[in-house]
């Protein structure tokens, strides 16, 4: 989320756009061809499978946990060694038929169950934050870009202000000062509050160049109102940008949630989240590496999957599926 082109760059891009306008646009890739190209892309496929798996895990958490036999909050004192500071008994953090991914030191809670429930938190927060930022980003970006002038100035200043803000410091300060109830909503709110300008900025830039395209003028000449032009004429042209940006935003938010939980201002215990699990595993990394590696790997793979997927979708959108 460091893409923060300044105004000048946006202006520069416009100039470039104009020069490139002469080339006939490539035909909008047909959905079926894109799907085919996508299916041929093994990396993208693997990533989608992993994401789906995590999603499924999140949705069916109670069911899965029934199968594995241990709930996410159940203590299992017999699985840890009270004489050794509660270190899990057995190799690899207590992994075995009983506890598939081992247990948490101290409490003996089942790591598998916590991973499964943690996926719920991570996905819910990341996806809701993505939806919220996308809506905010698109609406403000479109409005600012299309109307320009004063509206643009106000929106741009607000965006500049939000982007200038040291969001992390602020999020921690605010979250730690606010009461812990509804922490998940707060997380989504705070993340989105600081997140939308990044999309808005790009949407604004594109809108500014799109509105110079003659089809906007043609619509105007046909009697379209501003709202109709924005939502019926311009918005469809932003679809691929928005899709790409949102897929690329999800991993960012998964990471942010995990980071905030890591810093102790995320979800409230005993609710598990991957970030929280990583945070609590920090002191144990030398004696119980599995405790750190499992949530660490799950998180890394999830972020990687979304990133790769976003990347592939972007490429598909750019090349119209001509090259996979």
């Amino acid at each position: 989320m460091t893409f923060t082109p300044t105004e000048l760059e946006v202006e520069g891009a416009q100039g470039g756009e104009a020069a490139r306008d002469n080339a006939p646009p490539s035909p909008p890739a047909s959905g079926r061809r894109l799907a085919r190209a996508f299916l041929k892309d093994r990396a993208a496929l693997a990533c989608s499978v992993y994401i789906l798996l995590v999603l499924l895990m999140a949705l069916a958490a109670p069911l899965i946990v029934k199968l594995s036999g241990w709930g996410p909050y159940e203590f299992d004192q017999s699985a840890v060694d009270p004489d050794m500071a509660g270190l899990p008994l057995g190799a690899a953090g207590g992994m075995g038929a009983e506890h598939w991914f081992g247990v948490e030191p101290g409490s003996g809670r089942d790591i598998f169950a916590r991973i499964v429930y943690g996926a719920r938190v991570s996905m819910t927060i990341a996806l809701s934050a993505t939806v919220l930022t996308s809506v905010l980003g698109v609406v403000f970006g479109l409005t600012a870009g299309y109307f320009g002038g004063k509206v643009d100035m106000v929106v741009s200043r607000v965006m500049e202000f939000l982007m200038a803000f040291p969001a992390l410091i602020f999020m921690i300060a605010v979250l730690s000062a606010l009461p812990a109830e509804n922490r998940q909503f707060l997380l989504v709110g705070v993340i989105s509050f600081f997140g939308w300008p990044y999309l808005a900025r790009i949407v604004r830039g594109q809108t500014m160049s799109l509105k110079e395209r003659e089809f906007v003028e043609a619509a105007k000449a046909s009697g379209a109102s501003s709202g109709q032009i924005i939502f019926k004429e311009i918005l469809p042209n932003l679809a691929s940008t928005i899709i790409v940006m949102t897929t690329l935003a999800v991993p960012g938010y998964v990471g942010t949630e995990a980071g905030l939980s890591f810093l102790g201002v995320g979800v409230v215990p005993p609710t598990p989240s991957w970030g929280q699990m990583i945070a609590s595993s920090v002191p144990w990394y030398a004696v119980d590496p599995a405790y750190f590696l499992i949530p660490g790997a799950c998180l890394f793979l999830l972020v990687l999957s979304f990133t790769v997927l976003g990347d592939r979708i972007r490429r598909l959108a750019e090349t119209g599926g001509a090259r996979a």
Partner: protein
Amino acid sequence: MTDAPGTLLRARNLVKEFDVRGGGLFGRSARLRAVDDVSLDVRRGETLALVGESGCGKSTTARLIARLVDTTAGTIEFDGREVQALTGKDLHAFRSEVQVVFQDPYSSLNPKHTVERIVTAPLVYQRRPIPGGARAYTGALMERVGLDPDHSTRFPAQFSGGQAQRIGIARALAVAPKMIIADEAVSALDVSVQAQVINLLRRLQDEEGFSCLFIAHDLAVVRQIATRVAVMNGGRIVETGDRDQVFDTPKDPYTRKLLAAVPRIRPEWDAARRRNEAARRAREQEDAQR
């Protein structure tokens, strides 16, 4: 062509200034006068051609007339109504009476919309019913501009430049306008395609009787289509007159310079070619007869 005499559009002393740079608190409000005291008339059924070099203000004039931008000064009267004062229903009515065909067909057609959606957009935006349904209406329009009606669900990028420009014309015709403004409508096209589009425009004008404000910089093309010609230079109109008068006896030095710069195939070559052509035809005819 002359069955509806009288003036459809009357523009007087149009001025348009743009703010260049500026913005912000300390921006210098330098103003650029893109159109400077332009007056012109378009009569019913005629084609007025507006020519001049790049950046002289042709497009801006057109956009003023189509009320796509607001004037800085001057009046525009269309069919007896003051264009600048139109609002609501009247504006919608005006929007259906004046339509614009743009230079770059791809840029002026929304790449994410199908032909059907593009062509019916003016009716939709003006909240008017589509006679006979969108599909049938689009089909009919496409046929009229020489496109295959089966292609109504295609996207602009799936058409060639000339075909795409026809979609633009079809859109303009969808509301049965009284005037079409063609802003460099053929400049981006290959010679042969250019000819097709011009022929199409001319034919449609004959059939429908709309007036046309035809903007171009290619004088040879202009000569083919214009009834009258207005020459612009530096935001002003330097000369207006009937086509033949402007081309044969240009008054303004700028017009003369423009005419002189037009590259031409040597007339003697053309003459020779025509002779050869005629001879060949004759020969062919003979062969055929034989």
